[in-house]
């Protein structure tokens, strides 16, 4: 569906996007993940034909972006960052305007608008001026606008920024639903969003792709191994820590300072990728410890993101 090859964008001497290549296949939901100013929006602006790349090429459905920008734009639905909309227009008037520019016939427009209203939950605000809407509704109008011509490809720049938790969940559900039939590219700097909505993630930092894969793959390949936290009843926390440290399957132990009720929390990191929880349990039983809690923590996407983007920063 999308082919991007060695795409770069310079603004004067600043490099916003640096030699980026990736493919997106039909029906995939791809997430751009990166800190603010990493080049996510710039990449999207290039893909939507708003600005041309400095070098490199990109095509959507086999059509080159620079050569036939209009044809590409016809196939894309785009929600720019922070959903800029014409505030003085009414919701229905605005959707009709976009539909008309998209070349939808007047007869069909009515039906399309009705479908968008239903799908994006706009019934209650349809006749209102856009500048009277809450952020959540504006965002939904922005998504409705992007889908009105039923495009194969949706590009959504931070679709959930500035929304409250309920609205975020609603928008995520909408995106997941859309992802079943359409190709979606979305950007975010909120990590749980990616695991919640995307099939594949590109982690972008300082204009370059630093990692790509499914959220699970990324956690597995870049994580720092498993961690287990146990809570035991003990009068000698330091002794427990020393015993654990001597065990062969343990690489690192940290004992929390004593607590009032005799419960001690100990964090353990293993030498192997998996199976640490069971080992710790057996070890505790062998030593006759009273185990109040045992919790396994997988390396999260958050750790991956932080380790990847911080590394880049420290190189500089």
């Amino acid at each position, binding site marked *: 569906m999308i082919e991007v090859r060695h795409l770069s964008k310079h603004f004067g001497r600043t490099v916003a996007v640096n030699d980026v290549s990736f493919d997106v296949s039909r029906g995939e939901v791809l997430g751009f993940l990166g800190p603010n100013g990493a080049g996510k929006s710039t990449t999207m602006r290039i893909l939507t034909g708003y600005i041309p790349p400095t070098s490199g090429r990109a095509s959507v459905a086999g059509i080159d972006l620079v050569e036939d920008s209009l044809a590409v734009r016809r196939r894309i639905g785009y929600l720019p960052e922070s959903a800029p909309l014409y505030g*003085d227009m009414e919701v229905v008037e605005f959707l009709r305007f976009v539909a008309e520019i998209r070349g939808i016939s007047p007869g069909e427009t009515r039906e399309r608008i009705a479908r968008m209203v239903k799908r994006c939950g706009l019934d209650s605000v349809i006749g209102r001026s856009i500048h009277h809407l809450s952020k959540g509704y504006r965002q939904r109008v922005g998504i409705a606008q992007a889908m009105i011509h039923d495009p194969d490809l949706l590009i959504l720049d931070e679709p959930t920024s500035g929304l409250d938790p309920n609205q975020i969940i609603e928008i995520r559900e909408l995106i997941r639903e859309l992802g079943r039939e359409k190709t979606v590219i979305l950007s975010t700097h909120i990590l749980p969003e990616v695991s919640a909505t995307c099939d594949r993630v590109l982690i972008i930092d300082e204009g370059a792709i630093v990692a790509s894969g499914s959220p699970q793959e990324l956690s597995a390949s870049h994580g720092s191994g498993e961690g287990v936290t146990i809570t035991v009843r003990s009068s000698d926390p330091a002794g427990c820590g020393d015993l654990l440290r001597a065990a062969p399957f343990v690489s690192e132990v940290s004992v929390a300072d004593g607590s009032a009720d005799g419960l001690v929390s100990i964090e353990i990191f293993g030498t192997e990728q998996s199976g640490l929880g069971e080992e710790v349990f057996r070890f505790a039983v062998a030593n006759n410890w009273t185990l109040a809690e045992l919790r396994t923590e997988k390396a999260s996407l958050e750790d991956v993101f932080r380790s990847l983007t911080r590394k880049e920063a420290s190189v500089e």
Partner: protein
Amino acid sequence: MNNIWTILRKEFRSYFDSPVAYIYITFFLVLSSWLFMRGFFLVGQASMRGFFGILPWLLLFFVPAVTMRLWAEEKKLGTIELLMTLPVRDHEVVLGKFLASFFFLVVTMALSFSIPLMTALLGNPDAGPVLGGYFGAVLLGAAYLAIGLFVSSLTENQIIAFIIAVTLTFLLFIVGEEFVVYSAPSALVPILKFLGMGAHFDSIGRGVVDSRDVIYYLSVVGFFLYLNVRAVESRKWK
């Protein structure tokens, strides 16, 4: 072509969606009538010459106020990104916006038609200068609009767009006036006289519609609309 029409309608409607249009029109009609009527009974002639004398100066402030919003607001709110990623060509948007402001100007001018009607009731004015005057005013207004629209595309601040447009229009208007031409080097005189927007208006206002004047105004419109398209494209040059 369809896109131009769609954008024209959207922009034209958005004038009337807010109170701004009504304030502009009222301001224009009250001020033009007041300035005209003040001298009308003193002169004691059923002539519109006074009206067309003040019109260029009124339009000097009225037109930039009409155009200042058209691009600056899009840039400020970021809607320009939404608009320019729709399947429209840059020149279609420029033309649509220009024509919308043009029709708004025509509507405003048409509403001032009570003045020639009144003069016709009170006396027997020559129809030629009146029609010629309106024709010239519309052409002059179109040239102002093209300048104002272009300036609006250079900034995201409407106030700055207004002030620069007034200044630029004013300079282009007076550059052919006698007292500017007097102090200019003689080699430049014919050029300045040709470039000045005021001189071309005077001859049309006398009821003489010369094709050279019409072509002059259309060239000014074309030139600034072209610059406008280039300015909109400039986001692609960086």
